């Protein structure tokens, strides 16, 4: 099995799906000749040509809107939004159209569409190249939201998303693209949507995270392990539909919950996790639910000390783990 980076796993999944099914096509800004600004679509243009690998005009609403039409007429489009920060012009198409196509037509029309977008901070991207936007989309019934951490997952989840009959938002943390390597099974490897993964088993407390924060949580767990705190680290992988069973089972085992997300805390994705735990696992909790999140500012600032101030990291997560373990 090959050890690949996240970006390579995504590229491989795209190659394999386009090879396997001629209905699959890729569209977005710079995805063709350039192979994407991060290289996710590298090689696709040469292999499959400009008709299936479309360099679109710089207009996000029509990238998604045109993809919705393609999906209605028999294609399986994978749209790339160059940075998650630029997805908002397409919000109306995603929310009012893609998410509601099946519901509003009473099941008559579907919208098999994947929207890939690099998200997240820690890469000197400042206010408009660093955002975590998952909460906006995870809020919407009709959408599925996936955030891979492990390169193997990135391949398996992307393939599952492309084959899914409903619209999937696929957020890739851009700092993870080339940061860690992981085993990526060759060939037709699928990771089903809606299943969390326990990355580290533990008995003292549960940490729930996804994307880059999952990596930071794993580092933090090893750190506090030296002090005798045995943390369980749960990789949510799919934010909608949420794997509630794994979430609840982990808390019933450890009786302590720490939720980590990079987005600012107020009404972020983890707020819903906290609500579910409060509603359904209240009597299993030995301590208040804790969160480590980004601060309440509109976006990630640029200057290195400011960016470091913004980003939740292993050190902060470890501190929270200690507080939670001692509660």
């Amino acid at each position, binding site marked *: 099995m090959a050890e690949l980076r996240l970006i390579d796993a995504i590229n491989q999944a795209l190659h394999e799906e386009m090879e396997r099914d001629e209905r699959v096509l890729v569209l977005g800004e710079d995805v063709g000749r350039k192979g994407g600004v991060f290289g996710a679509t590298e090689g696709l243009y040469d292999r499959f040509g400009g008709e299936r690998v479309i360099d679109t005009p710089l*207009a996000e609403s*029509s990238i998604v*809107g045109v993809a919705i039409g*393609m999906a*209605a*007429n028999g294609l399986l*489009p994978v749209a790339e939004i160059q940075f998650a920060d630029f997805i908002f012009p397409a919000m109306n198409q995603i929310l009012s159209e893609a998410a509601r196509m099946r519901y509003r037509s*009473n099941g008559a029309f579907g919208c098999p569409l994947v929207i890939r977008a690099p998200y997240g901070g820690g890469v000197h991207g400042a206010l408009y190249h660093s955002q975590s936007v998952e909460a906006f989309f995870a809020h919407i019934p009709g959408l599925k939201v996936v955030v891979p951490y492990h390169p193997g997952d990135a391949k398996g989840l992307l393939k599952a998303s492309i084959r899914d*009959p409903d619209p999937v938002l696929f957020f890739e943390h851009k700092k993870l693209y080339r940061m860690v390597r992981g085993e990526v099974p060759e060939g037709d490897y699928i990771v089903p949507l809606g299943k969390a993964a326990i990355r580290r088993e533990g008995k003292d407390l549960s940490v729930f995270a996804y994307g880059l924060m999952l990596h930071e949580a794993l580092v933090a767990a090893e750190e506090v392990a030296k002090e005798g705190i045995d943390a369980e680290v749960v990789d949510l992988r799919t934010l909608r539909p949420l794997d509630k069973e794994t979430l609840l089972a982990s808390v019933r085992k450890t009786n302590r919950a720490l939720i980590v997300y990079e987005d600012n805390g107020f009404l972020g994705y983890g707020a819903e996790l906290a609500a579910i735990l409060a509603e359904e696992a209240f009597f299993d909790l030995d301590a208040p639910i804790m969160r480590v999140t980004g601060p309440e500012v509109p976006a990630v600032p640029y200057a290195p000390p400011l960016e470091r101030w913004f980003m939740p990291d292993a050190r902060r997560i470890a501190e929270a783990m200690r507080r939670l373990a001692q509660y």
Partner: protein
Amino acid sequence: MESKEARGVREIESRHQALGLAGEHLLEMYYYMALARALDERMWVLQRAGKVPFVISGQGHEGAQAGVMYAIDRDLDWFVPYYRSVCAVLMKGMTPRELMLSLFAKAEDPSSGGRQMPGHYGHPRYKILSTSSPVGTQYPHAVGIAYAAKVRKTGEICVVSIGDGGTSQGDWHEALNFASIHRCPVVFVVENNGYAISVPQELQMAVRDIAVRAQGYGIPGYTVDGSDVLAVYAVAKEAVERARRGEGPSLVECKVVRLTAHSSDDRQEKYRPVEELEAIRSVDPLVVFRHYLERAGIMDEAKYTEIHTRIREEVDDATTYAELAPYPDPLTATRHVYFEENGE
């Protein structure tokens, strides 16, 4: 020596014959226009009588819609409608019963099973894409459908409709831009009735003819009198043939009149002068076309009565059927959020 009247008939006949249309074709177009109008009027009556909460429709737009839809292959091609497309969706295959089921929001409504407001058409069997309420979003969808038709070599083209207000949306521009770059087989129709609810065209745009914008995308643009069915047909045919040949999209602007208020929640006397409302009656496409058919000797009093008797029966049947049909069960309201393995 030929009488003046006979010469007039001959001139008129040559107009539709030059387009390859026979009398029976014109009667079919007329039938759909009159059916759309009768259904539409009934819907307003039902709303005013308190039987349904809302109506939005297309009185005055029927000529433009009939001319465009007659130019496409109604079995093969796609249509992406908007809320005034009453006549167009009927021509594409939807039945009076289906439209009335949607008005009454009944379970059997094929557009949405009673989930959407009336006027939000959609029907996979007739290749009518489901539509929403935000204006303009349908334009990129039509481009995607047309792009897929091109890639999959299905031979289909796609027609999409919108009003003049919708052309102010970014999606409208983005769609024309994308489609013209990739020469997508799509016909962009604008039914310009001069008003976006109450906002007149001069406050919507600084151009008189929307079709001039086609130049900005490097595609042909046509402005045509939407009350003249044959003129619309001629232009639409050209646009459809161009799309079919793989030469790309066209923009067809039909100048139409809005005979009713925007919707049943609007009162257009508040913002349109009385003289204007009286004047537009004279270019009612149904009146204009009836006059043409009579002068061309295609429709006489007997034919007219026959057509309208049939239509009245159909509208009555549709009304009764839809009124008696059951509402959707609230237990079904959670269905079809996502694909269902065993869904219908």
